[in-house]
């Protein structure tokens, strides 16, 4: 079976800040990593491969250095990786990203299952997965917390999709797309063999000319949305800290605040 995992290289968002005076992003020293949610997608694909045999292919669209992220997942056991990279793809919003990735996936062809993370930690949109599914016209299950069964014979997958108040159990025909949340599995660490493979791996780069896409549909030009401003979130007001308060006093203080909010 053929499993395609979409992974994105993201900055470690916990370290990204806005300069409060200049309203610009401070990125010095912010390390890049594989989007945390995508690791669950990688792990699940590897588990399927171990069970049913086949091939796991990782795809990432991004600048040349996103190759590093692809090497990281090869070290986990991914068989091969493709980097989708071109200046023409720069500035893509989720619409253009989904279009470009779906064109790459079409080119890979004959896939059984596409896996994406629930959302990317930089944009937090959760839009690219469903977007890819729509461009490819295949069924999707989002926020998958558990795979009950993948049945290659019947060509179906049964999953549990996470909702606010519970889970939806769904059965989808293959090929389809699932987006993954953390509960699904425990991503493995790279193995020694994997690390060797990652070092040696040839990672082909597909550019604009390799994909069947129009220039007006990709990158900034193909993006309906435009970011017009970035700014720091409103600062929280300085809070009160009670350091040497007896427990009963502390309890009263909290209760007073809750009463003031009309809760008690």
């Amino acid at each position, binding site marked *: 079976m053929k499993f395609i995992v979409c992974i994105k290289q993201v900055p470690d*968002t916990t370290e*990204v*800040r806005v*300069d409060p005076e*200049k309203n*610009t*992003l401070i*990125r010095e020293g912010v390390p890049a990593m594989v989007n*945390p*949610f995508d690791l669950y997608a990688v792990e699940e694909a590897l588990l399927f491969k171990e069970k049913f045999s086949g091939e796991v292919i990782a795809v990432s669209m991004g*600048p*040349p250095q996103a190759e590093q992220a692809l090497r990281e997942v090869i070290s986990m056991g991914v068989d091969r990786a493709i980097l989708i990279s071109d*200046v023409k793809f*720069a*500035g893509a919003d*989720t*619409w253009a990203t989904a279009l470009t990735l779906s064109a790459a996936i079409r080119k890979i062809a004959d896939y059984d299952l596409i896996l994406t993370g629930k959302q990317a930690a*930089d*944009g*937090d949109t959760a*839009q690219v997965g*469903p*977007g890819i*599914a*729509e*461009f490819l016209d295949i*069924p*999707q*299950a*989002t*926020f998958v917390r558990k795979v009950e069964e993948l049945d290659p014979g019947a060509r179906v997958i*049964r999953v549990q999709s996470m*909702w*606010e*108040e519970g889970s*939806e*159990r*769904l*059965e989808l025909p293959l090929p389809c797309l699932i987006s993954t*949340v953390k*509960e699904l599995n425990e991503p493995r660490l790279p193995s020694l063999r994997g690390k060797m493979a990652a070092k040696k791996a040839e990672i082909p780069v597909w550019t604009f000319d390799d994909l069947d896409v129009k220039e007006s549909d990709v990158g900034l*030009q193909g993006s*309906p949305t*435009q*970011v017009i401003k*970035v*700014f*720091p*979130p409103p600062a929280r007001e300085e*809070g*009160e800290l009670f350091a040497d308060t007896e*427990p009963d006093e*502390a*309890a009263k*203080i*909290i*209760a007073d605040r*809750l009463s003031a*909010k009309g809760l*008690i």
Partner: protein
Amino acid sequence: MGLKIDHDACTLCEECIPSCPFGSLEIHSGRLVVLETCTLCGACVPVCPVNALEVEEVERSVGIDPSQWRGIWVFAEQRRGEIQSCSFELLGAARALSEKLNVPVTAVTAVLLGSDVRDPAQLLKAGADEVLYVKNEELSRFGVEPYSKVIARLITERKPEIFLGAATFIGRSLFSRIAVKVQAGLTADCTGLDIDTEKRLLRQTRPAFGGNIMATIVCPEHRPQMATVRPKVMKPLAEPYSSSGTVTELSADSLTNRVKFLEFVLDDTSHANISEADIIVTGGRGLQDPKNFSLIQELADLLGGAVGASRSAVDAGWINYSHQVGQTGRTVSPKIYIALGVSGAIQHLVGMQSSDYIIAVNKDPNAPIFKVADVGIVGDLFEVVPQLVSEIKQRKGVG
């Protein structure tokens, strides 16, 4: 198209280099260059002291005429026949936008899909001028394929200017597929909506990079301007809206769904739904033992709130993942967030720092949670929380 550098003006002062979130600016052989990692976000433009940087306007080749698109639509989300509160919040927001657009009158339409929805006219009271109710057995529960097909068809026929949905599990699964079908721009999980009255554009503000950055996004040349909006952020109307509006029932045909629904399993506790709660009481590793979650539960029950957990507590197997708050869990913004024995690691903070009011109890005075807390108590939760529970019971006159 691209980032233009006026090399005659550029003094090579390097001020712009650290401002680039993607590290795309470098100096090579005495010249400032833009690398291909540039996303044209424009962060560097205001930094340049001599205005040598400029993002060139892009030629976009979409053949639509925005003036043909009018009206604000809200996706009315229903589950098991009940219209969800997030939809009433969106209608409140839509009315405010409609007043600002006001040329001459911008109607607000609620789009409802289902078959046995209780009292669709509630949507009129909540702010809609009109309800389009697409009624079909196949639509009684959410299915992304039939829902996106029906809505995309309505959009193409009736051309709304703006289309809003809640950033719930349903909204986020659905809107992206619709946006692709109708070739529209979509902004996720907005926390602010406004109108640029001059250009008649929806200004959509949302947190990105785990809440460390806010971004304002517009969609100049595609319609509708689509956004999902974070629940609990917008306010429903305080007074019922009185309109002479009607509920129009529409039918839908040839609905197919390749995804087979098997069953819905409600979470095992009544404390699961942290996304909807006004109050969340969260326990972290400081609880030391799974059975101590009963302390959290008791407090949450007393306050009518939901139970949250840090990742450490979830990973230790003390409580189910659906309770996890933070970067790899859920983002919440309740009115009150009470963190007990939670250190406040940045990955936790990004999931809760937009809460209205934060109370924290931790025995470590240097715990980072205190940086965001409105009220911080340095103390042992096993002493403070039982006292708090009895204090509340006393004040409420129970127990």
